[in-house]
Every structure is written in structure tokens, then in C-alpha cells.
């Protein structure tokens, strides 16, 4: 098959955002090409999914394959305080309409490959080991991509270019749309372990969030498969800079500052290297422009405390597919505007929830146990953030925070952080 000279939609990146978009476009009969820099499988962080992804995977016919792949089934989250004593367990079951009572923890190398293969099976043209060097622009409009494959450069004209390049943010960087998050500047260091003690048998398949005694610090514990656990330390980047040590001793110092984690990691053997992610959270001035859309991490990256990464990727792909169908059949500006609004509204809910979470950790656990708010909080934790008009609990939480702020001898006043709400 000769190299494509033109296509309706050029998708930059074959991760979950690009592959899901490809699947939707294939189902809609819109021709497109996915350009992926790597040869899958390749490593990627972000192993924990949330329930709302079941809807998207159901729509593109992937949910059955995913369920049959043998990934760890995820039904709950556990928060462990910095004292290491006690655990707050919350079952977060997804919408049963899509046939599953669970979501998944996945080895992203394998998961991303399965999803990309699924898109190809539906008709996506996938070019792996093909680097997108640049997005072609004409009079301010994206009109294609310049790619490099086997040392040869090709120009591919496209009616639309979708940036699914992840944290590389190809278009956002090129067009200078990227803005560093003013509140969150975090740093993550993680590794995979065998024989990590995941705790009581009833909880070992849950995602665990261990709070650290340091500001906005926490540790994720995610079961990647039956033997392997991903363990990651998230702290403020300044904390890492001040520490001045190498990533490994920094990781160990934090893990050992938590009594329960210290116990759990004791029998563990690290497999694979320590990996880091800096330059954490960012937003884009806009998510669309003439001839282009941004999806997934290429559109926005928020603190991963609620496992939002893959969820934003596949939901934005779903919205982008609808926008592209509309734009290709006529009204581009309306279609792109609607995409901005839908994705923007959802991300704002995530972001507000994250801010409130860091303002007073665990405030939301009070409302999870109140029947009138429980369903809403579970929806938020599932990633069902795209209908903000149905979410009232965030207003309630904000009101609580204001009450705490203005009650001089409030018990929790000293626990509030300086995050503006």
C-alpha cells in the first residue's frame, strides 16, 4: 500500500485518544490515518481506568475484547491516611447499562496496543514508527502533516488534523497555546514492583491512594496484573528540587515516611526502572482552531489523583468524532465550538473537584455517606463529568469550605490549604 497523499482526518498519535477517535471515524465511514511515532507495544503510565470509559468502549465495540483480555477488574478505591492506620474504602461501580460491573487496571503497553489494533480492525489506517514532524498550515489553517517514516519524509494533506500526541502537545506547543497550570506544579516518580504487599485480600485489586505527610503529597498503588504493582510518588516539584537527591532515594524516602507503605514495600522487588514525569499540569488557550482539534493529554493535563487520563482521552475522542462528522458535512465553526464547550465543561468539573480535594483532603468522604450526595460523588469518581448541570455536590463542598474559612475556631480551618476555590 503506497503512502497516503491525502485523507479527511490526520490523527497525530495512536494512544487511547487517537485510537478511539480512529474507531469512531471508521464506524462513521470517514477516511483517516493514525500516525504513531512508536511501534506498539510501548510503555505508558496511567494504568487505572474509570467507569465512564465503559460507555465509550461499548460504543466502539471494544468492551467485550477488553473484558476478555484478563486485565485486573477494578471496583473500588481505598484512601489510607498518612498515619497508615485505617483505610477508607469506596465502591465505585460503573453504569450497569454497558454490561459490566467493573472497570479495569491495565498494563498500558498491552491495553494501548489492543485498542489501536481494534481501530485497525474497524478500518483505521495506522502508520506506526511514523513521526509527525510538523503540522502544515496555510493562512492560519491546519491542512495536513509532514511525517517521517523509514528516513523518508512525506506530506499528507488533510481536511482536519487532530492532535492526539499526548504530553508531547505537538500543536499546542507549535501554536503557543500551552499554559502551565498556576496552582499545580507536581512531579511524579514511579516504578513497577513484584511481591508488593497490596493489603487485605478483599482490597488487593482496588486502587490505593496513600496520603503522605508532605504538602499535596500522595502515593498511588495500582495492580497492573496478578503479580505487578505500579507504585508512584506524587509531590510538589519544589519538594523534589529542595531534596536535591536522585529520584530513587527521593522515592524511597517518601515511601518509607508512611508506616503502612514501608511495611508493604518491604517484601517487594522492583522490576524495571524508576520513571519520572515533571512539568505536570497544563491547559491550552483553546482546544480547536481552523482545521484542527486537540484531544486527550494533548488538550489538557490535570493532576492524576482521580485517574482521569484515559477517561479524558477517550471521551474527548468521542466528542471529537461527532464534531468532525458535523464539520465535514458543513458547519465547522458550530461543530468546533460545541466540542470546545463539551470538553471544556467536563474538564472544568474535574479541575474543580481536584481543587476542592486538595483544599481539604477527604472532605468529599463526608458526603459520600449522605444518601442525597452519594450517587453524585460516585458519578464524579467514575469520570462522569460531562453533564455539569447535574452536579450539585461541588457547590455544597464549596459552601462548606467557605463556612470553614469564616468560622474562626473551626476544627478544620488549619487543615485548609491555600488553594483558591
Amino acid at each position, binding site marked *: 500500500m503506497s503512502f497516503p497523499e491525502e485523507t479527511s482526518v490526520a490523527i497525530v498519535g495512536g494512544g487511547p485518544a487517537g485510537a478511539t477517535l480512529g474507531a469512531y471515524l471508521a464506524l462513521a465511514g470517514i477516511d483517516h490515518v493514525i500516525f504513531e511515532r512508536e511501534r506498539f507495544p510501548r510503555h505508558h503510565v496511567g494504568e487505572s481506568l474509570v467507569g465512564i470509559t465503559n460507555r465509550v468502549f461499548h460504543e466502539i465495540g471494544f468492551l467485550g475484547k477488553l473484558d476478555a483480555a484478563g486485565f485486573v477488574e477494578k471496583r473500588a478505591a481505598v484512601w489510607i491516611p*498518612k498515619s497508615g492506620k*485505617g483505610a477508607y474504602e469506596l465502591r465505585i461501580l460503573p453504569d450497569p447499562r454497558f454490561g459490566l460491573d467493573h472497570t479495569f487496571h491495565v498494563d498500558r503497553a498491552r491495553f494501548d496496543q489492543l485498542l489501536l489494533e481494534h481501530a485497525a480492525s474497524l478500518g483505521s489506517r495506522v502508520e506506526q514508527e511514523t513521526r509527525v514532524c510538523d503540522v502544515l498550515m496555510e493562512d492560519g489553517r491546519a491542512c495536513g502533516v509532514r511525517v517521517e517514516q523509514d528516513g523518508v519524509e512525506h506530506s499528507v494533506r488533510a481536511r482536519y488534523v487532530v492532535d492526539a500526541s499526548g504530553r508531547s502537545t505537538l500543536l499546542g506547543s507549535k501554536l503557543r497555546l500551552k499554559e502551565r497550570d498556576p496552582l499545580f506544579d507536581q512531579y511524579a516518580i514511579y516504578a513497577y514492583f513484584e511481591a508488593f504487599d497490596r493489603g487485605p485480600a478483599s482490597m488487593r485489586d482496588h486502587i490505593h491512594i496513600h496520603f503522605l505527610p508532605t504538602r499535596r503529597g500522595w502515593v498511588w498503588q495500582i495492580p497492573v496484573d496478578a503479580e505487578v504493582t505500579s507504585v508512584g510518588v506524587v509531590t510538589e516539584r519544589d519538594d523534589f528540587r529542595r531534596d536535591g537527591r536522585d529520584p530513587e532515594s527521593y522515592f524511597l524516602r517518601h515511601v518509607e515516611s508512611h508506616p503502612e507503605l514501608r511495611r508493604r514495600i518491604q517484601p517487594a522487588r522492583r522490576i524495571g526502572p524508576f520513571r519520572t514525569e515533571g512539568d505536570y499540569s497544563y491547559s491550552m488557550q483553546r482546544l480547536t482552531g481552523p482545521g484542527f482539534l486537540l484531544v486527550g493529554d494533548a488538550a489538557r493535563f490535570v493532576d492524576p489523583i482521580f485517574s482521569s487520563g484515559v477517561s479524558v482521552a477517550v471521551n474527548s475522542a468521542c466528542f471529537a468524532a461527532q464534531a468532525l462528522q458535523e464539520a465535514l458535512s458543513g458547519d465547522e465553526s458550530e461543530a468546533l465550538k460545541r466540542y470546545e464547550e463539551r470538553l471544556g465543561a467536563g474538564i472544568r468539573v474535574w479541575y474543580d473537584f481536584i481543587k476542592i480535594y486538595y483544599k481539604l*483532603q*477527604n472532605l468529599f468522604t463526608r458526603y459520600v455517606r449522605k444518601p442525597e450526595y452519594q450517587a453524585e460523588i460516585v458519578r464524579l469518581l467514575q469520570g462522569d463529568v460531562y453533564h455539569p448541570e447535574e452536579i450539585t455536590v461541588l457547590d455544597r463542598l464549596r*459552601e462548606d469550605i467557605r463556612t470553614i474559612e469564616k468560622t474562626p*475556631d473551626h476544627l478544620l480551618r488549619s487543615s485548609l490549604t491555600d488553594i483558591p476555590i
Partner: protein
Amino acid sequence: MTEHFAARIKRVLVERVDLDRDPEAIDPTCTLRDDLGLDSAALLDLVVGIEEEFGIEVDTDEITEERFESIASLARFVEAKV
């Protein structure tokens, strides 16, 4: 009567907040934050535990240092609410 409330609050502390102590051995005058070492997460657990144990609603502006200073002060607050 207040003693009875204090005993139930201690039970909430041990069962719900996972405080690693014998309820009998907790002095009702010891402070929740400093002596028992409860952090904000544990204090929120305690608020919810008390609401459920006594079937009361604690308003956010009632969660003050004064009322939640010790088991004894908390018992007086709960007694006045039920």
C-alpha cells in the same frame, strides 16, 4: 447521662476512625487532635460516625475547636443535639 454519650463516642472512634486503642483506656478529657493524634481525615470520619451513631445532623459551622476539643466536650454537644 453524658458518660453514656462519651462511651458511644469512644466506640465510634475505635470502630469508625480505626483508632488503635482500648476504648476503656481513653480518658474522656484527652484532646482529639493533640492527644489522640486525629488528622483532618480522621476528624471528618468522626463527624460522620457521630451523625450516624446518634442520628443527628452536624452543621459544618458547628465543627469547632471548642465542641470537638475532647470526648467530654463532644459528649456535651451531642447530648444537647439529640
